[in-house]
């Protein structure tokens, strides 16, 4: 695995407007067909509907004719795209160019996996799309037609739709980060104006009214792809950019409110335990999570097996012991392992058979811990994981000064 994927960003948000006479999906599919046909890429990775079913899956395809099955924005997120992509390059670089079309959070997960050396992006063009959210998997399974229809509506109610998943409702990473300061000047919100967007090429839908799509290159790699495709398209991004910022502001505020709400709901062991009361320890959330990359999860391993005597001892101390053991330990442990890289994709919440709001809790935890390190997961390939670098002056907020000692450094200084 290569450890660095140095690439430079393109300065301004310029791009091309592509007419979408037959609809957005058609426009995107045709674009991909073109890149395959002109040999700009050798394969495409795209979500696709399984024929004669309602199911969605990822396809890695080289046969142009099968592209018709593709749907860059399915109503649900089944397997997280970053996870699917990492399976392709787990044992080495592809050597052939692949274009992968995904939701922004899936691209971000891929970038986090890059930092964890679980994916190789050398020959992959990451293409993200403006995302209105995804529908709860449970809803789709129960009533695919109704849910798919509700999803269609989400394209006209950007940022205000309440039928998409809760984590999607508060997601501010639904589009490309703005080149300038984030709309909100509140330092307590996570930085969205990262140095560097994660994707190579972004497809903007907002402001296009379904008649146009905007193709925005975000890296020189993406620019090259766009240039080589030789599209006859105009340059005009203004409409898209301003609308995106408007929606982002709204969502950031929602996110702030959600964080406060979940912090209150999970404060203290008793509250936290209550949230996870229904948990059956199936570890689905961990399997579905794209960032959980361990060969074998620590919490599934022998390391946590204890002797029957230990169990009896504990049961004696507390009166009773519920099995499987250590539910809270699993969740808190998983949090401590991946909260800094959590991209709030919600795959965990979709996967939970007990409908525990695990995605929302982890999002809140992720936001808060990422704030401490001023770290934005998956948005800058060159930003190192906080755990892997040492700064002498950091994390002062959590240090409690001894009596008479100086107070820790001001919060304002930390978020510079």
């Amino acid at each position: 695995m290569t450890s660095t994927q140095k690439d430079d960003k393109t300065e301004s948000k310029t791009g091309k407007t592509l007419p979408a006479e037959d609809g957005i999906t058609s426009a995107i599919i045709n674009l991909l067909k073109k890149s395959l046909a002109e040999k700009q890429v050798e394969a495409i990775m795209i979500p696709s509907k399984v024929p004669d079913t309602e199911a969605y899956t990822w396809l890695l395809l080289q046969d142009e004719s099968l592209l018709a099955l593709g749907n860059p924005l399915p109503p649900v997120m089944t397997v997280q795209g970053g996870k699917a992509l990492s399976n392709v390059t787990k044992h080495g670089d592809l050597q052939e160019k692949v274009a992968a079309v995904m939701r922004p959070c899936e691209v971000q997960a891929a970038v986090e996996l890059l930092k964890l050396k679980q994916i190789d992006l050398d020959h992959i063009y990451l293409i993200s799309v403006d995302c209105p959210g995804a529908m709860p998997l449970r809803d789709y399974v129960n009533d695919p037609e109704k849910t798919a229809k509700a999803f269609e509506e989400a394209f006209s109610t950007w940022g205000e739709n309440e039928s998409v998943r809760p984590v999607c409702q508060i997601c501010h990473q639904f589009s490309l980060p703005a080149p300038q300061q984030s709309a909100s000047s509140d330092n307590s919100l996570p930085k969205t104006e990262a140095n560097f967007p994660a994707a190579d090429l972004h497809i903007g839908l907002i402001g296009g009214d379904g008649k146009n799509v905007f193709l925005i290159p975000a890296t020189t790699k993406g620019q090259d792809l766009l240039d080589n495709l030789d599209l006859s398209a105009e340059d005009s991004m203004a409409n898209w950019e301003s609308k995106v910022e408007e929606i982002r502001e709204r969502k950031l505020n929602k996110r702030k409110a959600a964080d406060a709400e979940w912090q209150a709901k999970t404060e203290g062991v008793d509250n936290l335990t209550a949230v996870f009361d229904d948990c059956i320890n199936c570890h689905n959330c961990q399997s579905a999570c794209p960032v959980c990359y361990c060969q074998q999860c620590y919490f599934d391993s022998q390391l946590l097996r204890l002797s029957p005597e230990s169990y009896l001892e504990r049961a004696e101390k507390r009166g009773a012991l519920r099995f499987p053991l250590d539910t809270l330990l699993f969740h808190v442990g998983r949090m401590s392992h991946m909260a800094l890289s959590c991209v709030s994709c919600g795959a965990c919440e979709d996967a939970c058979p007990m409908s525990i709001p695990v995605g929302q809790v982890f999002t809140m935890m992720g936001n808060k811990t990422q704030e401490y390190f001023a770290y934005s997961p998956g948005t800058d390939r060159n930003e190192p994981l906080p755990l892997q670098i040492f700064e002498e002056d950091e994390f002062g907020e959590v240090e409690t000064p001894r009596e008479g000692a100086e107070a820790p450094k001001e919060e304002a200084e930390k978020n510079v």
Partner: protein
Amino acid sequence: MNGHIGVYVCECGPNIKDRIDIDKVLEDISSLENVKVAKRFPLLCSNDGKKFLEEEIAKEELSHLVVAACSPREHEQTFMTVCVKAGLNPYLFQLINIREQCAWMIPDKEQATAKAIQYIRAGIQRVAFHRPLEQKEIDSIPDVCVIGGGISGLETSLSLAGRDRRVYLVEKEDSLGGMAGKLSKLLPYQGSELSPVEAKIKQAQDNANIEIFTSSTVSDVRGFLGNFDITISTHGESSEARKIQAGAVVVATGFGLYDPGDDSQYGLGQIDNVFTALEFEEMLGKDKLLLKNGKPPKSVALIHCIGRKELGYCSKVCCLYSIKFAHLLKNTSADIDVTELYTDLCLPHKSDQAYFDEAKEKGIRFIRTGDDVLVKEKGKQIEVEYDRNGQKDSVTVDMVVLAPAMVPSKDTATLAEMLNIPLDKTGFFKEIHEILDSISTPIEGVYIAGCAVGPRDIPESIVQSQAASGKILSSLIPGKKIRPEVKVSEIREDFCTGCQTCLSICFYGAISYDPIKDISVVNEVICRGCGSCVGSCPSGAIRSKHFTYPQLYREVLEALR
């Protein structure tokens, strides 16, 4: 885990006996399932005590040994040696501190006894999970890597190289000699003998035990005294990296010259015929003390102390070489007018005062000025304005020679980080003790010599080089063995996903990545057992050999029960 644990409580004279009810301890401990025997003894660290333990281990066929006595810092080694003698792996042993941590700090005997029992029980729980560990022994490497091929590097290399000891001399320029090699006539001799620097270069080149790398730098260093892994990178058309092993490193990277800047008061780079001392040395070497128009100068001003105020230190050598320049200029023509402008004069050696007096006798003028010296163009000549005792004055000359301060050479900061050695306020390498040890660093096996440590002249640099060599010769004896840390980390292949988080955390550079297996691997010789990697691995793939999860968990669980 055969359950044949022997527990021995030391009375430690009156220290433990009087403050802890040892019989009560034994009564409690004997009742434990896996404890085969629990006894007391007056003084276990005595010869009798050690003999007793040795016999007990054999007699009772103990699988593990637990001793409850003083601090491990006192006698852990002692009892480990006993184990070895008795044929028991010394890591199947635990020393419980019931002296400093119980007897000596708890006045109430009942409480102290209760705590002692708790501690010993915890220790017994732990020791049951100990695994036998092997103490490796490796040969220390007598070879030395010298960074910097100037006079200090050359002297160090020549002092060290021998049949049993190879020296790797790494020089970043394409030739040896450094700054001293650019000087033409070294004081105090001024004649036509072969430059001492040239002589040393030749000696080094002819020495079969010195391997010279020019146009090369050291790009990676890891390890410790007796066992450094060093990567030497050679630039040029075929850039290659060579990995060598050495037992010690000597940093002799020398100095650079202070650059007053493009628009300084000294006119360097703007006014013709304003030269630095180094440029003047070059001209001296070619016997061409001429102006830019090819004519010899009729008047010269030598300005000392350039940068002394800004940097805050005196560079020691400039006054002497400026006087040398003055003498040499006078040698070219008796009529040449030479003025030396200085803010302070530094004449420390035995023969310096006489040299200075001689200069004055030759008519060389020495003027002590204030800080503000201004060099301006005046037609085809140069005017040097200065203030002296509050009065403004000036001298008009054909040529100006500046004596800039010595500054740390460019790679100093990079090397300091690579070797983990500190720099002081001036940016030069920081010696461990300015008076008593000006060549050692806090890192054992890494030495500093010459101008890399600060401004000094060649005799001093030579002495330092010899001192560093002396330290190495006495400590890095060929054939000496090193016993690296035993309680190191190990990575279980099946659990490792090759994310390399541990690699980026390891302070010692002891972890490397295996791209074929896609896992990280611990170098057990360089690893110091700090455990940072263990904490960083989310999979739990890394564990410390002697601080495993079951060991710690059991110990703490029992201690808190």
